């Protein structure tokens, strides 16, 4: 590509690209994000290429590997443009039929279309699928319109127009002012006003400043930043350059976790493309502004998502947080003013500059503007990435977009904000989701992870799970975090294995107060959240575990027993044959019995027993204890 050295050459290049690509030309867009690749998207793309080649259609029909559109549950996703026909869960074996039926004969392959579970009708266009229809895809929308590896594609959708506007028509102060007017708040978790961080760095005395992308997304179940940086890396770069210009930085870093190899690959490629075409380097677009970017691969520590730990790691030292009594915006990497923003925050910047702060601020609530991407996972029908305006209710996200809870189960809670977030119960489903409301409810936005839980989830066990994660991921530097988590986890392990005592809840609260009050960084200060929020809304579950050794969700195996009701058992043998521990005895016309000594409490017998019989009982608490005790004392004769 020719060197883009001015606003004119940028626009000229853009026009040339658009002229080259006729929008009416059929294009097969296959999601090439990490999720779809894992379910075989690369093979699907290859199959399309082979099929088109063999039919001599390569010139007439293009194939494109796009970024992640978000509907990961149904990947690999194929969208045929310009009609936007959306086929889900496409396998290489479906490819020949798609080409023959849809691209040649202009007919639909009905069996690959989305079926609306509410009406049973088939939906052809991607945008009409309820999962997408109820979203506001300001940022994610571009992912499916471009090939993640193509600068041309990004330019075709107005890429780098915001950069040209910022560098050539606006002063750094005007850029800052526009960001301030937009009221953009950091998407990484804290929700700190972006302009304030930028202004603090800009006003710092030291002329050497840095801008950094935090792509160290480490929350279990969160993958929105991965989708953005994999799917549309140039948008992150563009935001970063604009931020650097506003702040007065000439060096940027992208701190991306190495567990995201495709993100690392795509962002490195984007940097090389931008450098080669003059969008990075000296005198960008003839503005006189110089800026360079380096990628730093994170070595796999969750705590490095914390700003000061990330900066310490960037300096080449062990990623441990340091006190931030002086903000990193003033004293960050190598003690220089450093603006660190999350991937999604940077992705918003070009949109605000290109389309104006007013456009951005039309979405969202009074205090929280714009959209937010959530990764919706867990016990939910439509797993994937959803982008909604701030202030949308949890119910809308879970029911309308997420399609509710599968298998007819009841919604119990949604965990937001990653491991240091909290659980929100069904009674709060109408909560308007934004930074402030989630915090008020005892959870937090975090980077946007949303784990949906159904009635089979034990809330004490969930708290235990997250504390176990945090015990490993704490850096271990300060006592209240390292020791507080260790002791809280011990209590939770005891409670979930039937060894809880009276006073455990108070002990948890005491430990939590010290961990919150005295920890050095945000990881420690928020680590007790999973415990405190579950105690707030599900205290009775803790009490049941402690007092009655009862797990109301039947999830804590140590508190369970499975028993076969002799009156209901039809001796069909299904449970006996399915038991992986060979713990069930019985024969034809002989009532079956579970050997409690051998039983591993996996629950297979309970789920396979035909519902017409319902002979297997799932017990917890006193009932479970009595079954186990009886069996231990006097194993029943079955012969």
């Amino acid at each position, binding site marked *: 590509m020719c060197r883009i050295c001015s606003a004119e050459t940028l626009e000229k290049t853009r026009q040339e690209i658009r002229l080259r690509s006729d929008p009416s030309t059929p294009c097969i867009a296959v999601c090439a994000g990490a999720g779809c690749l894992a379910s075989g998207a690369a093979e699907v793309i290859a199959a399309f290429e082979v099929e088109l080649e063999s039919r001599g259609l390569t010139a007439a029909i293009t194939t494109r590997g796009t970024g992640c559109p978000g509907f990961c549950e149904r990947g690999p996703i194929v969208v045929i443009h310009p009609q936007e026909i959306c086929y889900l869960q496409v396998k290489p074996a479906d490819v020949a039929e798609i080409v023959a039926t849809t691209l040649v004969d202009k007919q639909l392959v009905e069996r690959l279309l989305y079926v609306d579970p509410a009406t049973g009708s088939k939906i052809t266009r991607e945008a009409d699928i309820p999962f997408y229809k109820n979203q506001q895809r300001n940022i994610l929308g571009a992912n499916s319109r471009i090939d993640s590896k193509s600068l041309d594609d990004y330019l075709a959708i107005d890429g780098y127009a915001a950069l040209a506007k910022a560098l050539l028509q606006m002063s750094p102060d005007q850029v800052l002012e526009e960001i301030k007017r937009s009221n953009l708040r950091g998407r990484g978790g804290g929700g700190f006003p972006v302009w304030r961080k930028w202004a603090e760095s800009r006003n710092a005395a030291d002329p050497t400043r840095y801008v950094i992308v935090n792509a160290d997304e480490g929350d279990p179940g969160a993958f929105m930043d991965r989708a953005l940086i994999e799917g549309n890396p140039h948008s992150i770069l563009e935001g970063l350059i604009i931020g650097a210009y506003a702040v007065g930085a000439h060096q940027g870093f992208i701190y991306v976790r190495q567990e995201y190899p495709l993100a690392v690959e795509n962002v490195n490629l984007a940097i090389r493309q931008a450098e080669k075409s003059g969008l990075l380097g000296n005198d960008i677009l003839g503005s006189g502004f110089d800026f360079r970017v380096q990628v730093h691969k994170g070595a796999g520590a969750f705590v490095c998502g914390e700003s000061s730990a990330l900066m310490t790691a960037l300096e080449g030292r062990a990623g441990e947080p340091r006190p931030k009594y002086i903000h990193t915006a003033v004293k960050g990497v190598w003690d220089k003013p450093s603006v660190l923003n999350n991937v999604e925050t940077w992705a918003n910047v070009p949109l605000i500059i290109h389309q104006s702060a007013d456009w951005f601020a039309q979405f969202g609530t009074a205090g929280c503007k714009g959209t937010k991407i959530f990764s919706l996972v867990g016990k939910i029908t439509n797993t994937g990435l959803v982008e909604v305006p701030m202030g949308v209710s949890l119910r809308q996200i879970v029911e309308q977009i997420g399609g509710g809870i599968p298998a007819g189960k009841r919604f119990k809670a949604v965990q937001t904000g990653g491991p240091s977030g909290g659980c929100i119960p069904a009674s709060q489903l109408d909560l308007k989701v934004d930074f402030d409301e989630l915090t008020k409810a005892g959870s937090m936005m975090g980077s946007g992870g949303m784990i949906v839980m159904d009635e089979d989830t034990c809330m004490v066990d969930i708290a235990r799970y997250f504390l176990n994660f945090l015990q490993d991921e704490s850096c271990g530097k300060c*006592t*209240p975090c390292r*020791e507080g988590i260790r002791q809280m986890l011990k209590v939770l392990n005891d409670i979930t294995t039937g060894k809880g005592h009276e006073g455990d809840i108070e002990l948890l609260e005491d430990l939590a107060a010290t961990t919150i009050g005295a920890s050095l960084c945000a990881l420690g200060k928020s680590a007790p959240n999973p415990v405190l929020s579950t105690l707030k809304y599900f205290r009775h579950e803790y009490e049941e575990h402690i007092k009655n050794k009862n797990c109301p969700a039947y999830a804590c195996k140590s508190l369970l027993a499975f028993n076969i009701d002799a009156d209901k058992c039809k001796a069909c043998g299904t449970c006996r044959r399915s038991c992986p521990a060979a713990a069930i005895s019985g024969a034809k016309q002989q009532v079956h019995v579970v050997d409690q000594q051998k039983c591993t409490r996996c629950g297979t017998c309970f789920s396979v027993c035909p519902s017409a019989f319902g002979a297997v009982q799932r017990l917890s608490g006193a009932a479970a204890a009595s079954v186990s005790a009886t069996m231990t004392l006097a194993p029943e004769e079955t012969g």
Partner: protein
Amino acid sequence: MSDVRLTIDGKEVTASRGMTLLDAAQSVGIAIPTLCHHPQLEPYGGCRICTVEAEQGGVTRLVASCIYQVAPGLVVRTRTEKVNRIRKVLLEEMLAHAPESEILLNLAQDYAADKDRFEKEPSFCIHCGLCVRYCAELKQKHAVGFIDRGAQREIHFIPEIAGQECWDCKECFPLCPTSALQAAYVLTEALLTPAKKPSCCS
């Protein structure tokens, strides 16, 4: 250096800019307990036993006084109920690892900490990092460091360096508030040079 006026436990204090709350308090005879602090080393803020309440503009925060710097008009309280409670729990957590540490036991008396509140896991080390930082910052040898993270974090001598540097130094030993350090070194020594006997014993 310009002076900063603040209040610590009701006392008017004049401190120089850049001074920590800990130093400012000590300058007027107010004692704040410390474990990971060493006047010759960079402030670390790891043990958090020096946590105090600092109020400014109506907002009260819990801060580590060994790091937090004085600011004009700051109101510092070093022995509130909240601070005492935090120190008590921190001591109880550390005593699970180093139940015999005299420093910890003495502090436990001051804060009514129950040394047996938590199950004992005598690793002895309370992760104050004095040895690691002393060796890195003052001796510049890096013969002892931290390995792993979270609850698994431990101090370890680096055999290649320790074998050459430590025998004639051992300046970190008296810094250790528990007996962990010496034990770790003896272990390294034994593993590294099983045949070599210390000259004093020959």
